[in-house]
């Protein structure tokens, strides 16, 4: 008992440990731009979830907006649900307010729920550090892939490796995605001060 107390106090930092491949991801109940609340558990027949931490202001996220929308359309028919989450505190980054999320979703015709991580409770549990930052989960919400959408932020037509799509294809054929994680530049998440 003494040991376990020590363990908890010694290893319980302010920020939870970021998810690794194989961890079960937490569900959430977050408000979307359509005013409704969304949870992964709402999608009973989903084969998997594409959770994308993204936002309005970040130029890297903006460059991926159309690709994220296309992915949502493409994989919906295959049973995968794309959920985008804005993790930023609008007090720090006013362009990422819920009102402006609604505006952006309308302008771009987002076909996916664009959720607001109100109170910033969800992104630290995932260990998201930047936008965009993608987590691919299987139907049991187990993390299968973490990282970038593809290998060319500047130009969709110059992409050589579609990391996320390849990872979904691997899941579909019962294989392990390769790579399971990728690195990419992004805008740091704006935490409450």
């Amino acid at each position, binding site marked *: 008992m003494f040991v376990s107390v020590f363990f908890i106090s010694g290893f319980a930092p302010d920020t939870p440990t970021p998810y690794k491949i194989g961890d079960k991801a937490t569900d959430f109940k977050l408000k979307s731009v359509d005013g409704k609340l969304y949870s992964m558990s709402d999608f009973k027949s989903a084969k998997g979830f594409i959770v994308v931490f993204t936002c309005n202001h970040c130029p890297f996220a903006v460059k991926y907006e159309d690709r994220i929308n296309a992915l949502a359309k493409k994989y919906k028919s295959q049973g995968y649900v794309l959920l985008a989450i804005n993790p930023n505190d609008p007090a720090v980054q006013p362009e990422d307010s819920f009102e402006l999320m609604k505006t952006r979703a309308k302008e771009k015709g987002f076909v996916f729920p664009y959720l607001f991580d109100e109170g910033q409770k969800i992104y630290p549990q995932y260990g998201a550090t930047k936008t965009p930052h993608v987590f691919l989960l299987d139907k049991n919400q187990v993390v299968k892939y973490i990282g970038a959408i593809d290998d060319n932020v500047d130009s969709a037509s110059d992409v050589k490796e579609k990391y996320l799509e390849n990872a979904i294809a691997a899941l579909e054929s019962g294989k392990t995605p390769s790579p399971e994680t990728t690195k990419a530049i992004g*805008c740091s998440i704006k935490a409450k001060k």
Partner: protein
Amino acid sequence: MKSFLAAFFLIVFSSQAESQNVRIFENYSTLEKQILNDQNTIYVVNFWATWCAPCVKELPHFEKLNSENKKVKVVLVSLDFKNQFETKLLPFLKNKKINSEVVLLTDKDYNTWLPTVDKDWSGSIPATLIINKGKRIFAERIFHSYEELNEYVNTNIN
């Protein structure tokens, strides 16, 4: 027409003379080999971009470090988009009167080069790398003041 052309060239050349010469690298390993290669220099390498607000905010601390801490050389590696080199990056450097060495890195194969900077770098910026005689100290963090940065650098190079 002639005088117009002459005026045009005058403007082009005078603006070049005022702004610093920013080298562009398409490959990170080339950048490291060509810019961060002096064994007798301690480099403080800051990864930033004009579109990154927290980066822009901490830039003056790096400028001050470069001018006041004689033990180190600051290199600012811009990750700005290539097509905004002349429209955004150069005007920004001129406007902010940046004196530290600035290079533009356009290597888009992040998954290859990010782990060579540091295996734990998630990819968020700002991020800072110290190279001291082959020893590398990396931090994916923001420095809120010159004092904070200077103390961090001094602690890590001594």
